[in-house]
């Protein structure tokens, strides 16, 4: 399978963009918008850290995976190192969003 290539793009969406959209469309201050965005992120992280999943309809879902410890290698030095057991988050795009990604023009 050919390697997937990252799509080169114009500036990334950042928290500042979200603050802007919230303050404009919901009519809240930028400061409040900032607290809300951090609040959303904090709730998601809190839920995941309890081992629960997060499902946002129309966007995607976040899951937790438990990784066992394994031996890896420091790519710079070539020295073997143990990669400790850890919890990682995986993200799955919703079918709806996947469809829009395939046909951007289909979305109004």
């Amino acid at each position: 399978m050919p390697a997937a290539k990252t799509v080169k793009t114009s500036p990334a969406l950042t928290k500042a963009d979200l603050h802007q959209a919230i303050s404009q469309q919901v009519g809240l201050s930028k400061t409040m918008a900032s607290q809300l965005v951090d609040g959303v992120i904090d709730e998601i992280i809190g839920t995941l850290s309890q081992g629960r999943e997060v499902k946002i309809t129309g966007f995607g879902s976040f899951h937790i995976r438990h990784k066992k410890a394994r031996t890896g290698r420091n790519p710079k030095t070539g020295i073997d190192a143990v990669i400790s057991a850890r919890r990682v988050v995986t993200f799955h795009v919703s079918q709806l969003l996947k469809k829009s990604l395939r046909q951007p023009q289909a979305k109004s």
Partner: protein
Amino acid sequence: MVTKDVSNLTRSELVKQLAARFPQLREQDLDQVVRLTFDQMGQALVAGRRIELRGFATFSVKERAPRLTRNPRSGEKVQTGVRKSVAFVMGKDLFDRLNPGK
């Protein structure tokens, strides 16, 4: 699935949890905030933009090259279009909170 899995956090529950955190705000506004947040994120990805949320994660769009596949029923060759998927990379804060002391 008919039964609702209470162990998952959904958009509506996220709104409720935010309401507990921000009692001074109306729940309908919080609902709009959450909707807007994920709409903006989705639209950014559709437009091919990356999403960088400090303390949480980075999302980027990956394109997979088109390839020839076969319709298993008719045996016909089909050119499968360019597929796009979203790559997710955990941020440091997210990692640290899931793996304290590492």
